[in-house]
């Protein structure tokens, strides 16, 4: 009976449903897409970079991105379980890198360094892993465990405090100077297979990151400990009722996150051979960005987010900004990274793969 009336009025009424914000957001989306596409068109058509160069940029992005991904795993797992941004995780990474530096430095004067680089690299990786794991667990014990159940802002602030504390303890212990990693001769130069040229360091980074992430995935999906982690992430109270030791599981989460960050720290030293007490900050932020980008709480998402962020950073400036002849566009790579984050979140408010979180608990 009222059918006809509703049909009639509907088009007119629909108009009122379009709020200024959604108009703005859509305009923003379209404008950004247009800017990106036109910029890409301009730079590709200008032929400034050859296909091989584009490929190199991608490979490069993937290798940086896989380090972000490794660090991001720590953020995303902690977030998944405890729902807070562990700001100190960047410092966990830095401590790992610092340890890697000292071990590498000690090894560099031994014949092992040149005779069997793989072994020495492994030693460095393991040392970094253990240090970072230890630090992550200690932070959890001292700073976060007493705060279970506190409002969400509280552990966040604590983690900022922990971040400062670790940075400046490290500064006090080993001094403010920037230290440069010893170079590993066998890792110089490029590696070639089937016409595909890749820097050896990048290859090592990508392979190591893949191994670690694969291992982690299997661990979380298949093992008992991994399953209890997922259970705690889903609902800690129910998990506790099911006989899972929540505290121990959370420690495990921190330990694994720390180990990943430690590996990332050692790898970072290979690619970017200088480190000081402040080096953890930016990679930490980037890694958290990756975690959000991929969909926080989502392990596969963190990996994907990290690699995407690496690629955005590496390819983005040359692809989009260069097209508009913006001077010194590569200076703006971080702008591209953050803009990409905003962009992805405007299109997909819960990240690329979506959150994998249980319902918000209040």
């Amino acid at each position, binding site marked *: 009976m009222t059918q006809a009336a509703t049909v009639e009025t509907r088009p007119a009424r629909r108009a009122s449903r379009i709020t200024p914000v959604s108009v703005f957001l859509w305009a923003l989306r379209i404008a950004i897409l247009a800017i990106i596409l036109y910029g890409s068109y301009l730079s590709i058509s200008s032929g400034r970079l050859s296909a091989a160069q584009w490929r190199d940029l991608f490979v*490069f992005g993937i290798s940086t991105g896989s380090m972000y991904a490794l660090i991001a795993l720590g953020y995303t797992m902690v977030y998944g379980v405890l729902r807070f941004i562990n700001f100190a995780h960047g410092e966990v990474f830095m401590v790992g890198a610092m340890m890697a530096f000292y071990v590498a430095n000690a090894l560099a004067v031994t014949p092992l360094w040149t005779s069997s680089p793989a072994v020495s690299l492994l030693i460095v990786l393991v040392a970094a892993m253990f240090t970072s794991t230890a630090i992550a667990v200690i932070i959890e014990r001292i700073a976060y465990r007493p705060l279970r159940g506190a409002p969400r802002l509280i552990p966040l602030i604590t983690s900022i405090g922990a971040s400062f504390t670790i940075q400046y303890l490290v*500064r006090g212990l080993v*001094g403010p100077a920037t230290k440069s990693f010893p170079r590993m001769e066998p890792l110089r130069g490029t590696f070639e297979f089937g016409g595909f040229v890749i820097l050896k360091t990048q290859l090592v980074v990508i392979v190591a990151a893949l191994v670690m992430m694969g291992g982690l995935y299997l661990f979380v999906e298949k093992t008992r400990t991994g399953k209890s982690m997922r259970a705690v992430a889903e609902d800690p109270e129910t998990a506790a009722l099911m006989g899972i030791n929540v505290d121990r599981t959370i420690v495990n989460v921190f330990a694994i996150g720390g180990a990943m960050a430690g590996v990332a720290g050692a790898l970072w030293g290979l690619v970017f051979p200088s480190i000081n007490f402040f080096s953890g900050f930016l990679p930490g932020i980037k890694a958290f960005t990756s975690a959000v980008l991929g969909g926080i709480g989502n392990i596969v998402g963190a990996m994907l987010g990290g690699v995407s962020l690496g690629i955005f950073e*590496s390819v983005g*400036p040359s692809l989009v900004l260069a097209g508009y002849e913006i*001077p010194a*566009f*590569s*200076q703006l790579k971080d702008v591209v990274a953050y803009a990409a984050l905003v962009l992805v979140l405007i299109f997909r408010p819960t990240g690329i793969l979506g959150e994998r979180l249980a319902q918000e608990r209040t």
Partner: protein
Amino acid sequence: MKMKRGLKLLALVGVLSLVIAACGGGEGGETTTTAGEAETTTSAAGEETTTSAAGETTTAPAEGLGTIEVAAGDPIKIASLQSISGETASLGTDQVRAIEIAITDKAEVLGHPIELAFNEDDGCSSEGGQTGSTRIIADPQVVAVIGTSCSGAGVPASNVITSAGRVLISGSNTSPVLTSDLAGNASAEYHDGYFRTAHNDAIQGAAAAKFVFEELGLTQVATINDGDPYTQGLTGAFEAPFEELGGTIVISTAVTADQTDMRSVLTEVAAAGAELIFFPIFQPAGDFIAEQALEVAGLEETVLMGADGLLSDTYVTLPQTEDMYFSGPQTPTTDAYAEFVTKYTEAYGEAPIQSFHAHSYDATNMVFTAIEEAATDDGSGNLTIDLQAFRDALGSMTHEGLTGSLSCDDFGDCASPNIDIVQNTADQADIEAVRGNVLISYSREDLGL
């Protein structure tokens, strides 16, 4: 409701108090005198600037900056204002150590011990420079301040410290903004009483430009900085004289200090048709530019040129930096410097961690010498340091220091080191050899500055 009315009243009274306060402030600096007189013998200079408006800050304080009395047996106080926290902590810590060594070496001036009364942090920022210098000048006994680490902190610090009649002398500010363009024009932020033993970017820029244009005969140049004020200033200081000489800056671009992939920038540079790339940046970004320049099409023939930030052992031993040119102030190779490094390493457990320690060591010693010249002893050990005479002494002295022979120009630039252009050729084994391979050395006169 009561509460609200109270608040409103509070606001009203606040406004009133402001007006009163401002009136007080406007009455010819009366406020500063009451606050300062109690303890400062040098407050006269403070009032001068109270009334000075923007743009005219270069006006020198009037005659008579006052004096500082040091009683017999009391220490002579100096202060350091360096970046000792945060990301740039190593820059300042390095210089603080040099100052401490200088004090230990000197032991006493005119029979008075020397006290580093303040070890202030400039935070490598303008607000750090402002607060730190305000604190230092609150102590009327401080004669001179060695600092700042960063030019950004130097801008407000120079204003505050020189207005109080004291001297600021820096071992690592290189920005022309703080002194002059070396062509006789004082910069907007130059204040009488500011000195520095670090070279003005303008000297190095001009030397590099002259070398590229006249000796290499190249006219199409690209510059790359890393967004750091130092490197951005230096590329700027290169570009202006280079264009004046008739060259063309085909592209002026930048990377970030943590960037590892330089290919896109280098491709851009290649596309612009650069014959030479001037990138006065630091490691490790500099490593990546040199390494990746070889891989970019169109840059095979392009000449690379860096500056002092890249003159290190780990850099010149990179195979890709072969044949590269570097500009940089003549470096101390004297025994005195070697001896300094030994002392440094003994005292602090590590070798010098940055490159401006020697400059601060020299700056500190210049201060000592100037005090010795300007101070008068009343015979019983009481010292009177006339601040104007102290400034004059600094301005007119010639000091043989670790970094060479220092004498100040009219705008506080004391370092006029010869700028060496060196080349890293195949037979150079290490940094010392590269530094020794001087192709040409420009003095300030050579550059017409």
